[in-house]
């Protein structure tokens, strides 16, 4: 691999990794407050993608929209995906998890419920939206905007990377600087004590789901823009992002970001070095290697401690 090729793939890997990072945050946030792996998060991501598709189909960008219009369409699509993602995650918590929590169900039941909810959601989506994939209508003409280390970056990639970074910074601030963030961290550290200190646990948990859902939904839109929309689109990125969350240290928000970027780069680098068929393998090898030497992930567990 020449140096130029290295930069090419590094940039591509960073773009993909930023997307994995945003999805991984959804897993990590929920794990932080509930110690639950929310396997239905990949479906929140899928529903978000459909949200943007629905919005874009309704407003219909037409051929060659102006630059201002393009920005508007992107913003609308993003808002649509955030709304769909947020509402789905909220509903999921309300319908699938809260009743279990009330009854003090064992952890395993939560896990099974999560998988059940995931099956339900993607089959429902297949029924509602059809089982054929679709693509988002073109919102802008995808051209190269600049080059970095000789690697061209086009609008789709820039949009994807910039949105991911902005969302991650915003989330980091939210968790570390706001009252809600303090609540999230308190519940993550010790839910019982937090409730004794006057934190409304139900509210914090449900808001955590909404935040994770909004991030997941927008990631769904970005992913749909990169690839396409289909009812099974959540599965592979979902598993990969979950692995990324574990690599970084599940429950740890900055860990999820780091893990996502790392897995994205490793996957992309695999393509020229070993070939596409090895990309998932190499991602999982990274996971295993990290867990062998740092069983809690690179940055360690828990929202409360590390953020």
């Amino acid at each position: 691999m020449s140096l130029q090729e290295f930069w090419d793939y590094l940039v591509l890997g960073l773009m993909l990794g930023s997307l994995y990072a945003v999805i991984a945050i959804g897993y990590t946030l929920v794990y932080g407050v509930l110690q639950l792996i929310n396997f239905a998060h990949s479906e929140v991501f899928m529903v978000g993608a459909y949200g943007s598709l629905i919005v874009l189909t309704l407003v219909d960008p037409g051929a060659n929209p102006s630059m201002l219009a393009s920005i508007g369409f992107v913003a609308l699509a993003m808002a649509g995906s955030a709304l769909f993602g947020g509402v789905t995650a909220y509903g999921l918590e309300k319908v699938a998890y809260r009743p279990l929590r009330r009854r003090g169900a064992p952890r395993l039941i939560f896990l099974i419920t999560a998988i059940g909810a995931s099956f339900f959601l993607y089959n429902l989506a297949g029924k509602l939206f059809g089982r054929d994939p679709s693509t988002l209508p073109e919102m802008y003409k995808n051209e190269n905007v600049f080059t970095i280390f000789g690697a061209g970056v086009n609008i789709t990639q820039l949009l994807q990377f910039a949105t991911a970074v902005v969302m991650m910074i915003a989330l980091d601030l939210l968790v570390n600087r706001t009252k809600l963030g303090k609540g999230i961290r308190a519940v993550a550290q010790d839910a019982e004590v937090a409730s004794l200190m006057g934190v409304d646990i139900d509210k914090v948990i449900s808001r955590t789901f909404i935040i994770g859902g909004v991030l997941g939904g927008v990631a769904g839109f970005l992913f749909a823009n990169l690839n396409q929309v289909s009812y099974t689109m959540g599965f592979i990125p979902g598993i990969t992002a979950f692995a990324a969350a574990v690599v970084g240290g599940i429950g740890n928000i900055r860990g999820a970001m780091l893990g996502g970027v790392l897995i994205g780069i490793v996957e992309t680098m695999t393509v020229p070095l070993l070939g596409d068929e090895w990309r998932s393998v190499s991602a999982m090898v990274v996971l295993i290697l990290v867990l062998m030497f740092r069983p809690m992930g690179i940055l360690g567990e828990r929202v409360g401690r590390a953020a």
Partner: protein
Amino acid sequence: MLNKTVIKLAIPVAVGALALTGCGGGDSGSGDTVKIAFEGPLSGDNVALGENMQNGVQLAIKQANASGDLGFKLEYVAADDQGLPDKAPTAAQKVIDDPDVKAVVGPAFSGPTNSASPLYAEAGLVTVTPSATNPTLTDEANGFTSLLRAVPNDNMQGKAMGDFFSKKIGAKKVYLIDDKTDYGVGLSKVAEATLKAAGVSVVKKSVPQKTPDYSATAKDVVNSKADGLIYAGYYQDLAPFAKKLSDAGFKGAAISGDGSNDAKFVELAGSASENWYLTCPCTDATVEAGTKKFAEDYQKEFNRAPGTYSAEAYDVANMIIAEIKKAGKDVEREALRDALAKASYKGLTKTFSFEKNGEFKGTDVFVYQVKSGKIAYQGNVNELIG
């Protein structure tokens, strides 16, 4: 306590046993109805290809019933295998257990054909596939004695792709991708051999279906400096890949096979599908003179133009109907299978007859190209390369 448990268990077991014997008893068929099944992807990611064929079969059955000279009633049975090898045996079993089903159109895809054919062979139920093109399916060692292939296999199509690149396009270096399915791997193997024999250098890669991001793959194609690209796989993966290729600035000639030869490819990939070549052992029903009438009927019935393999499925269904008509509605499954294997039937698209192992006799492969958002018919490969 123990007794109660035994009784609780005994009742469902007894009911189940009754149900089973009920199934086994009625193998002779009943009434005036003969059923023809279609096995293919009727849900899942490749549903468009399945529906193309299902519609063709349904149209044939409807017209046969309407003609009034059958003396019995034909009925359609759908068997959905989602295009997946692991779902196919269940779909096949469902069809086999229905004693009224005398013949099956399909399975549509090579993988499912491979996993379902042992069951069909055991039941003696004939399956005539209009589209499963993996060459190994007709190997006699498989023992797929009920399988008839009504389409030239991938050896023909892969060879056509290779010939087209070496003789018509004049490519020097071809980047060859398969999608790791039975179909894609079979196709790419033959294409590779043909290209190498013609002195074209080949970069061969496998990119599994549902790869989440094709950017890196597209970059790799451009970096390889290949002037030709072959994608052996299906449209729903080719579409995002084609987009990334166009983003990455790939300028060479690109070709894919019948798995991508669907209007959905153009719809999904948009302008990135422009100039892609597509091969198919199928003709374009809306262009060829022999199938114009069929295309009109199809349009009227389903409110859309026939797609890839619609006309072939229609032909195969009609061939089966003709044989059932000859043999009468009470024909045994095995007898119908043997009759079909020996038959020669002139359909709208081509003449169907089979080798001893069930392989199709004939080699016609056709080339299409996406032009201004339409899949335009270019002609027979043998004529194009001259």
